[in-house]
C-alpha cells in the first residue's frame, strides 16, 4: 500500500469540503478518481500532492504518517495539470534541470532520468527545444516528463487528455501505461469516464466530499451490468448513493489496458 487515507477531513472555516475520507492507493496501480465538479476532487488532490494540509485524519505514505510533513509528500509525488506548467522560454531539458534541482536532485542524476523519460515519451529529439516552440501534444508529454524528473513514487495526473484529439489521447494513455510499467503509481482524474474505465485498475468516486465507491472497473460492471456506459453507472451512484462498494484490495499488480479492436493501446 502506497498511500492510505484514514478519516481525513478538510474544512475551510465552517465549510466541510472533505469528510471521512477513507481509502488507499496500491503501489503500482493506476487509480482513477472521478466526481462531479465541486465534489472535493481538487481539494483531495491538493492534499495528496502536499499543497494543502488536512484538518483531521491521517495520511500514511509508505506506512509513514505524513501529517505536518508536507515536504515528505511533495518529495515523493509528481503532479501534472491539464495545462502546461512549464517555462515557455526554456527547453524541456532546462525545465527538467530546474525542477529536478528544486527536488534536490543532482545534475547527473537529472540527466540520466531525463534521457530515460525522454526515450519513454518520445521526446529525445526535442531535448533542447523551447517549450513555446512545441506542439500542444508534445507540450503535454514534456509536462509529464518534468513531473517525473524527480522520480516520484506517485504521479497525479489531472485531466491528462483533456482537449486532445482521440489519437493523441490514446498516445497519452500509452505513455501513462509506460510510466506505470516503469514503476510509478498513478492517480488520474478525468471527466472522460470511458477512458478512466478503460485504463485504470481501480476507480474511486468522490461525491460531496465523500468517497462513495471504490472498485475495479470489472466489479462496477458486475454490479451494474455491461450494457450501460460507465457515465451512466457513475450518475446512478452519485445521484442515488448506495452503500459504498468497497472490495478488499487485490494484491498489487499492474493492470494491462484493455486492447481495442484495432489493437492500439
Amino acid at each position, binding site marked *: 500500500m502506497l498511500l492510505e487515507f484514514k478519516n481525513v477531513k478538510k474544512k*475551510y472555516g465552517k465549510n466541510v469540503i472533505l469528510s471521512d475520507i477513507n481509502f488507499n492507493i496500491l503501489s503500482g496501480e493506476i487509480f482513477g478518481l472521478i466526481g462531479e465538479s465541486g465534489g472535493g476532487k481538487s481539494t483531495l488532490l*491538493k492534499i495528496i*500532492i*502536499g*499543497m*494543502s494540509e488536512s484538518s483531521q485524519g491521517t495520511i500514511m505514505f509508505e506506512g509513514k504518517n505524513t501529517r505536518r510533513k508536507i*515536504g515528505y509528500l*511533495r*518529495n515523493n*509525488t509528481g*503532479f501534472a*495539470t491539464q*495545462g*502546461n*506548467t*512549464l*517555462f515557455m*522560454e*526554456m527547453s524541456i531539458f*532546462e525545465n527538467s534541470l*530546474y*525542477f529536478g*534541482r*528544486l*527536488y*534536490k536532485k543532482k545534475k547527473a542524476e537529472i540527466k540520466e532520468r531525463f534521457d530515460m523519460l525522454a526515450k519513454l515519451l518520445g521526446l529525445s529529439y526535442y531535448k533542447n527545444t*523551447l517549450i513555446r516552440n512545441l506542439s500542444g501534444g508534445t507540450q503535454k508529454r514534456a509536462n509529464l516528463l*518534468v513531473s517525473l524528473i524527480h522520480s516520484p513514487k506517485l504521479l497525479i495526473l489531472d485531466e491528462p487528455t483533456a482537449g486532445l484529439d482521440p489519437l493523441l489521447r490514446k498516445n497519452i494513455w500509452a505513455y501513462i501505461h509506460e510510466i506505470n510499467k516503469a514503476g510509478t503509481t498513478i492517480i488520474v482524474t478525468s471527466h472522460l469516464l470511458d477512458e478512466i474505465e478503460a485504463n485504470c485498475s481501480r476507480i474511486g468516486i468522490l461525491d460531496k466530499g465523500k468517497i462513495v465507491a471504490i472498485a475495479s472497473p470489472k466489479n462496477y460492471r458486475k454490479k451494474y451490468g455491461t450494457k450501460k456506459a460507465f457515465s451512466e453507472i457513475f450518475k446512478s451512484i452519485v445521484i442515488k448513493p448506495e452503500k459504498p462498494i468497497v472490495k478488499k484490495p487485490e494484491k498489487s499488480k499492474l493492470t494491462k489496458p484493455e486492447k481495442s479492436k484495432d489493437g492500439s493501446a
Partner: protein
Amino acid sequence: MAVLNVFKKNLKTVSRNWNYFVVLIVCPIALILIAGTLLSSSSASNLRVGVINEDPEYNFDFSEFKKIKNYHSLSSCINDLVEETTNICFHIQKDNGVRQIDIMIDNSKESIEVYMKKYILEKVSEEQAVFIEETAKDLDAKMTLFSTSIDTAKKELDQVYVELEEQEEMLSLYHTNVTNTIRTVEDIEAQLNYLKYQYDTAAQSSEAILLKQEIESIKSRNEEILDRVAVISSIINNDTDSTYDNQLNYQIDQINNEFVDINNDLETISGLSVQGAANKAEVELDNLINQMMSMKAALYKLESDLVTSISRTRAAKSRVKTFLTQLDEARSEMDEMSDKFGKGRVYVNFKNPFTFSTDPVLYTYPMLIAMIIAFTSIVLSNTFILRQVHRSSHLREIISPAKDISFLVADYVTNIFLASVQIVALFLIGLYWIKVPFPVSSLLVLLSIFLVTSIFIFIGMTLGYLIKTQSLSMLLSIFATLLIIVFSDILAPTFMTGPIIGFFVRLNPLVIIQNILFNTIVLGRQLNFFMASIDKLVVFFIFGFIITYIAKKVSKENVVN
C-alpha cells in the same frame, strides 16, 4: 543552491523574452538619455525677456538672456506675456529723478518666477552694494577731512583765546597804570594850581624859594609819571603784533612827549630870575596847567579807550569760547555720526558657501537617478513578480519541496541584478556624457544605493504578491512610485516643511538617496555613516524583507485556495 537555481532560471526567462528585455533595460536607458538631453538644453538664458526702457541713461545687464525684445509700451509687452511669447517684462522709468524698475514676471509658472526674482535680486543687490560702498567711502573720507579741519580750527581758536586772555590781562595792567597816572596828573595839576595860587599871592623871596621847591616837587612827580609811562610803553612795546597796541603806543608817546615838555617848562621856570621869572613862571605855569589839563583829557580818553578795549577783548573771548564749545559739539556729533555710519552700514552679499558646477544637468542628475531608481525598481519588480505569480509554472514551483524563502530571495536577487544593470547604465551615461565620476570610492554610497534600491524592490514585489489582478497591481505600483516622488522634497524643500511632515519626508528612501548622491556627486563630499542615514535604510530593508515574505506567503495561500 535553490536560490542560485531559481536565479539562473529567472535570468533565462527574462533574457529570452525580448519584450521584457526591452521594458527592463532599454526603456529606462532611453528615459535617462531623453531626460539628459532635455536637461542639457534647458537653461534660464532661454527665457524671453521684454524691455521697455524709458530711461536711456540706465542700462540693466541682460547679457545672460539670449532672447531680448524691446517694446515701446508696457501694454504690448503684457499682451505678449499673456500669449506666452514673452516670459518677463522689464519696465525701466524715471520719475522726479528717481529710477524705478517694474518687473512683470509670468507668475503662473513658479519656476520662472522664483528664478527671475533670485536673479534680479542678486543683480540689484550687487549694484546697490557697490554704490553704497563707494558712497560710504566718500563720506568716510570727507568726514575724516572735516574732523581734521575742526581739530585744526579748534587748536587755532584755543591759541586765540589764550592770546585774548593775555591781551585782556595786559590791557587791565595798562588801565591800572593809566588810572594811577591820571591820579598823579591830577595831583600835579592840583599842585600846579596851588603853585599858581601861591605864586599869585605869596611873597617873592620866600615864595620864590617855595616856588622853586614846588617846581622841584612837580618835577619829581613828573619824573614818576615819566617812569610809569616808560613802564607802560615797555609793556606795549613787548606786544608788537597788535595794531591796537600801535595806537596805544602812539598815545603813550604823545603823553610821554607832553611830560617831557612839562619837565622842560619846569626847568625853564626854575632857571628864570625871580621877577622876570615870576612873570614868565606865571605864564609857564598857566601853559603847564593847560598842558596838564590836555594831558589829563588825553589820559582820560586813553583810559576810556582801554576800558573799551578790555570790554571788547572780553567780548571776543566770550565769542571764541562759545565757538570753541560749538566746535567741540560739532566734533562730537561728527564722531558720533561717523561711528553710527560705520556700525550701521549694511552690506548685502550673496555668497556661495559651496563650490560646485552650475551645469543644470549635473545639478539635477542626482534627482534623476533617484527617480529612475525608484520607478524602475518598484514598477519592474512588480511586473516581474506578476509574471512569476501568474505563470502556470508557478503552481509547479509551489508544490516543489523548495522553501518559499528560497524563491523570495532568488526573485529579489534577480530584481537587484536587473536594477543594478540600469544603475550601472545610469552612471556610465553620467560618466561619459556629463563627466560625473562614478562614486565607487565610497562604500557607503554604494551601500546606500543598494539598500534604497532593495527597499523599492520590496515595495514592488509586495504589491505583485498581494494584488491578484495584474492591471490593478501595476496601477498600484505606479501610484506608489508617484506617491514616493510627491512625498519628497521635489515639490517642496524638506527644510521648509513642518516638523511632522518633514520628519516623514526625511524618512523617504528617495529623499535619502537623492541627498546622498547630491552630496557626493555634485558637492563632492565624503559621507559618514549617519550622514548617509544608513541606519534608517537598514531598518527599512529588514522591515521590507519581512513584509515581502509575508506577502509571498499570502500569495501562495491564494494560489493554493
